[in-house]
């Protein structure tokens, strides 16, 4: 079940990808953290991209006001939710919380449009953890109207907020004088501008230690080298099978995802606040099962599968998995290595910390379709797990070289 790297078809994207490679060399000297990175790059943006940036950071676009895209996709925390104390994120109404862990926006532009690859026999690409949006623009239309997120009652509300915003002029400049006339098409344009912003080099810095290693500009320690070897070794970690670690044919730096979907057998997270939501929003309560891709394509063979995420910035973007079950890389690596070796925990609803203490792993949230071929019994020893984690830590953007 090796997935091949998928190329992105859009010519525009290809153009900007080359741009991104150049950026490895350009950005690092001045980059301290991702937040400053956004500021540093703004000057290079087109009008549409600038508009997208304004929209992305506008906290006025929720109902009630106060929540922007950037609230849960904060550039200072690698475009994930800065609140790491809960596995999922607050909505505009703070007592309403989503059922899924906020994904990182970085590198998402590389995901090809959602499609079924008949050669591989797999669903590939798309946006959201379950692929329910085919493209970035489709994705951008989601959170505004999600009652657990920005909670606007309808498109018109969002369009009206933009019409009154300080950047409304920019909107007209980009999309023409009649841009606001039709709420539906204006809403699509808002999404279009957001997608354009998310395609800018800001969202693909490629400035990790590993990128410098690949460019011949950073030295790996022996442990990091060993970790990389284990990561790629088919008889060991075999991680690269779904998280390719080599540059693509066209020169795109490794993206550490093949954009396929997989059920890793992740247990239910007892701390997922979604279970506490009123029955109006979660009628099943604790019986709620997240079907992932299966819920989108309505095929039981896809139940429990979620999109393979990039591993870039993995060391800084905890918690992990669709429900935020894992808080540590060590825990996740142990799960990959020992899921099918350790006994199943006797009780359900065991947290990561307790499972590690008890030497067991709880049963999967979705027991069908669990990938038992590529993980679960890797037999990694402590030294190997440490090496793997050391390698994963080299994938954090913003590395500074001495030269």
């Amino acid at each position, binding site marked *: 079940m090796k997935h091949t790297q998928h190329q992105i078809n859009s010519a525009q994207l290809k153009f900007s990808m080359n741009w991104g490679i150049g950026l490895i060399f350009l950005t690092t000297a001045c980059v301290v953290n991702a937040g400053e990175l956004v500021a540093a790059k703004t000057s290079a943006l087109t009008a549409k991209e600038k508009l997208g940036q304004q929209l992305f950071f506008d906290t006025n676009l929720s109902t009630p006001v106060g929540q922007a895209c950037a609230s849960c996709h904060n550039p200072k925390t690698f475009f994930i939710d800065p609140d790491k104390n809960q596995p999922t994120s607050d909505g505009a109404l703070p007592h309403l919380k989503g059922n899924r862990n906020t994904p990182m926006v970085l590198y998402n532009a590389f995901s090809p449009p959602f499609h079924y690859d008949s050669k591989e026999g797999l669903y590939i690409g798309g946006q959201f953890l379950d692929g329910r949006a085919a493209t970035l623009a489709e994705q951008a239309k989601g959170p505004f109207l999600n009652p657990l997120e920005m909670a606007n009652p309808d498109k018109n509300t969002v369009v009206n907020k933009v019409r009154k915003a300080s950047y409304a002029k920019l909107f007209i400049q980009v999309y023409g004088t009649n841009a606001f006339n039709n709420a539906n098409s204006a809403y699509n344009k808002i999404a279009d501008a957001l997608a354009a912003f998310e395609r800018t080099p800001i969202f693909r810095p490629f400035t990790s230690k590993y990128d410098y290693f690949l*460019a011949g*500009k950073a030295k*790996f320690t022996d442990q990091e080298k060993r970790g990389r070897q284990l990561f790629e070794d088919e008889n060991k970690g075999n991680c690269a099978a779904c998280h390719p670690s080599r540059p693509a044919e066209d020169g795109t730096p490794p993206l550490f995802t093949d954009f396929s979907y997989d059920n890793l057998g992740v247990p239910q997270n007892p701390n997922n606040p979604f279970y506490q939501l009123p029955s109006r929003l979660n009628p099943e309560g604790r019986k709620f099962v997240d079907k992932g891709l299966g819920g989108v394509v309505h095929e039981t063979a896809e139940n429990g599968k979620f999109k393979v995420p990039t591993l870039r910035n993995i060391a800084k973007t905890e918690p992990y998995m669709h429900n935020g079950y894992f808080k540590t890389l060590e825990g996740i690596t142990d799960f990959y290595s020992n899921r099918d070796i350790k006994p199943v925990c006797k009780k359900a609803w065991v947290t990561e910390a307790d499972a590690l203490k008890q030497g067991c792993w709880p049963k999967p949230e979705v027991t069908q379709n669990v990938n038992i071929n590529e993980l679960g019994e890797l037999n990694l020893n402590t030294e190997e797990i440490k090496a793997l984690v050391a390698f994963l830590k080299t994938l954090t953007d913003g590395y500074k070289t001495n030269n």
Partner: protein
Amino acid sequence: MNMIIKPLKHAILLACVSLTTPAYALDKPATMDEMWQVIRAQQKQIDELRNQHHAVEKSSNTDTPSSEPVATKSANTDVKNLERKTDVLSQEVEKLRTNLAIPEEAKYKSAYGLGPAASKIYAAGKGLSIGGYGQASYQAKVDDKGTESDNADLERIVLYAGYKFTDHILFNSEIEFEHGTTGEGAEEKGEVSVEFAALDFFINQKANIRAGLVLMPMGFINTIHEPPFYFGNNRPEVEQRIIPSTWREVGVGLFGELLPNLTYTTYVTNALNAKEFGSSGIREGRGSGTEAKAESFGYIARLDYAPPQIPGLSVGGSAYVGNSGQDQTFVGKKVDAFTQLYEGHLQWKYRGLEFRALGSWGSIGNADLLSQAKGEVIGSENFGWYTELGYDIMPHLFANSTQYLAPFFRYERLDTVAKAPGSIGVLADDPHQDWEIFQVGLQYKPIPNVVVKADYRNRVAKDENTNPLSDDFNLGFGFIF
């Protein structure tokens, strides 16, 4: 202009004429059917003659007795002659028939640098010639096993099929089945490959043409890899990782004997593909005739000399040059990736003693960009050499034996990243590619076509302390036919 064109025309004409001339006049029947027809016709003739003979006898009984002896005598001779002819033809038919199942004993002699079994077609008369070889082995990883497993492998079963159209044009090919099967799942390790498939046009002893999927004439093993003719179950690593045997490309070129005992081969082929180069060498960059990229060409030439003063000695060398970039981009840049590989070799076979030495050095241009694109270091230089010595002790054990028993020793030293393109990150040297191999073994041939091999290899990488190479014991057999 005319002065050049005229001789050229003549040469081409001569070449064409010599190529189209049949091997020999068709005075013999070519097929069994034809032969049967001839026999039948002759049988008919015999019967007719017999009848005539009887008729003559009858009439002579009634006629004058004086004429009898002459007529009978001549008829008798005719019949005898025809009967003898029929016998000869019957034998020929029988021979043809058995030849289909059991070919005449072939002379296993290397021709034009190919392996002895692969060379059968050159010694054959017109038509089809079948040959082949095979090898299987058991490999036990005896030390530094790591995650590797002991294994039992039907490494290769190979069929040579050659067809001689005329004395001047022939086709020869090698079809190889590797590792048992190409089935599903655990069985999918097997491969089927055409190792070579080429047409030879014999024009002149000094210049013959070969075109097709050709074996690159480098080193000992690439052109002669039949198991009875090298020591050990595994081919020398230098001739796998530095000279990437079995290396074959689609090309065309000349071969022949320039002077007595001085032979050469030279081809223009599609070039290697640098996208497939890696830390372990250029091996995966071979085109192998499988829709190989041919945006750039490779040039290869080889010379071998066997001085008549020293029987059993041959020395030679070869060179390959070509751009491996193949019009592809490497981290955004188009590069030549100019690739060179040179090799020199010496072999001496004398009274049971077999000695070989081979050294090879190569370089790869733009190795820095190639490494960055691949995500692993690709050496800007690589090298390897080995030497081996074996001695047939059978004559000392059993003076009259025709069998063969030779202990041997081989030492190899190779590094696919002899020079790294940089010193940091992915450009830095990979000590795991720097190898030293000590090998001892025993080679037993009950007959020259069949070999049983046992050997032990101690393989040492430069980073042996942290990332050792496995050592192995190998037991196997091989044969040619």
